[in-house]
């Protein structure tokens, strides 16, 4: 039954405007990051790690969480428009699966975004900055950890987009979340704030591994945050009356 809900959610993304955001926003981030890297070579070493610090500085601070917000807001906007709430809520599937399917689809889009971010990082390093050699394999681990770190934010943004019928709110919250995440990381509170988990996972603006091999607490924190928001969403879907506009 969950698989059917995921199939339906995937189908809604066919030819959707959201793919433009998926393509363009990481390009902006890569442009800023590479430009900044090349302008500050007197302060930075000319290597792949330093290029990563500049790419992630912009990406995690200004783009990553708002993009998740855009994905979440878009998927719920499809239901808010017209009378699609009536359609999905009268379908013979568990109400919570409707939310979980959106959660998994946004997670999939986030994974694809991370892949695109890596390709841009690679292209910027090889073709623009002309860095020697290849990026360290660790970068791929950090990108995957970024997906894991985003799970709590995905669930939170989806919850927000489900309750508040505004496209802008989840995006603005994502923007504020990016900044608050950086502050939480700098205070050593990475595990206590979902937006910080994204940055800690990505090892944003750092050359050394921020998690220092402490992966289990990180994974648990990601799952707990995601679990909390998924549970709240399931409760709301079960208890609230459907209001379609």
């Amino acid at each position, binding site marked *: 039954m969950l698989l059917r809900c995921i199939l339906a959610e995937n189908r809604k993304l*066919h030819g959707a405007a959201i793919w433009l955001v998926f393509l363009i926003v990481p390009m902006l981030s890569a442009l800023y990051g590479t430009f900044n890297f090349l302008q500050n070579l007197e302060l930075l070493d000319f290597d792949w790690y330093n290029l990563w610090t500049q790419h992630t500085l912009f990406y995690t601070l200004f783009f990553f969480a708002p993009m998740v917000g855009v994905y979440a807001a878009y998927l719920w906007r499809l239901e808010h428009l017209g009378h699609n709430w009536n359609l999905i809520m009268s379908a013979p599937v568990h109400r919570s699966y409707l939310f979980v399917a959106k959660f998994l689809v946004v997670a999939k889009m986030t994974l694809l975004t991370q892949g695109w971010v890596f390709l841009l990082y690679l292209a910027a390093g090889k073709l623009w900055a002309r860095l020697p050699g290849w990026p360290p394999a660790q970068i791929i681990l950090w990108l995957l950890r970024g997906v894991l770190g985003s799970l709590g934010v995905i669930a939170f943004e989806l919850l927000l987009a489900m309750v508040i019928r505004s496209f802008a709110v989840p995006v603005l919250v994502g923007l504020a979340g990016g900044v608050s995440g950086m502050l939480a990381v700098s205070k050593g509170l990475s595990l206590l704030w979902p937006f910080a988990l994204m940055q800690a996972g990505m090892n944003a603006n750092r050359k050394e591994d921020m998690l220092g091999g402490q992966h289990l607490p990180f994974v648990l924190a990601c799952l707990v945050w995601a679990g909390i928001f998924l549970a709240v969403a399931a409760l709301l879907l079960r208890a609230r009356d459907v209001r379609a506009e």
Partner: protein
Amino acid sequence: MTNIIETHDLCKIYGSHAAVEHLDLVVPQGSVYGFIGPNGAGKSTTMKMLLGLIHPTQGTVQLLGQPMNDRNRLSILRHTGSLIESPAGYAHLTAQENLQIVADLKQVPRKDIDRVLEIVHLREYRRRKVGQYSLGMRQRLGIAQALLGSPELLILDEPTNGLDPAGIQEMRSLIAEMPSSCGATVLISSHLLSELEMIVDRVGVINNGRLLFQGPLDQLRRHSRGDILLETLDPDRARQVLLANRVRVRDGNSPQCLILPALTDAPLAELVRRLADQGAGVVGVTRRTKTLEEIFLSLTEHGEEVG
């Protein structure tokens, strides 16, 4: 006859406003049930409660022989198709893709999409984006979504809203055929009785959340006895006689015509005899039959309940 829908004492209260009050709806299997009421009467709220989209404040809902609750919800919805408020759909997708989404959710084979597209005459427009559809086409797509999986029960909320006369006619024929072609029971709402009287066999009239009438359409028609038009040679004398007999009188279209309220046969015959005896010169007595629309209006305006 088995009832496909039964509600008992169904209520929905928002703060101090009762949207639906003590509703006992009974829809027999195989019928096309017209749920009639003015805008804001409580039709959509009732239909949403039937589908579990809105939680009743009080009362019970039984669909397809099972109580609508968390345990039975999925098995009931598997056999129910609905179109609530206005047609849903994703504007950036084609009709085919929209139907595939519903087919995925209902676990219906893809080949059923062709069948329903054929029924609603949208087969040749299946690859057109729904955002480019006219309202009529979207309504038909909404019906197609409801028909996927050959449901036993169809709940259609004002499916003719916004359609032109040709579209209304087409939708009416489509719905009227459903019990015979698909074996489905249909609950259909409208704010116009005239729109449904040709296709429904049972009617429920609701206003201000209360069910004012429920029963066969013929029974509603029996309430069609209207005013009486009395034509006399001496209207002044006739007026005196009528007032003496405590009958309210209004002026008619011409000086010789008076309008009397609805009377049953025996009192009317007695009144005519007295008028004749008193020399009023009765020339003609005509019963004015109410149209169904007038009955509906009198029910909803006065809020009277009819058994």
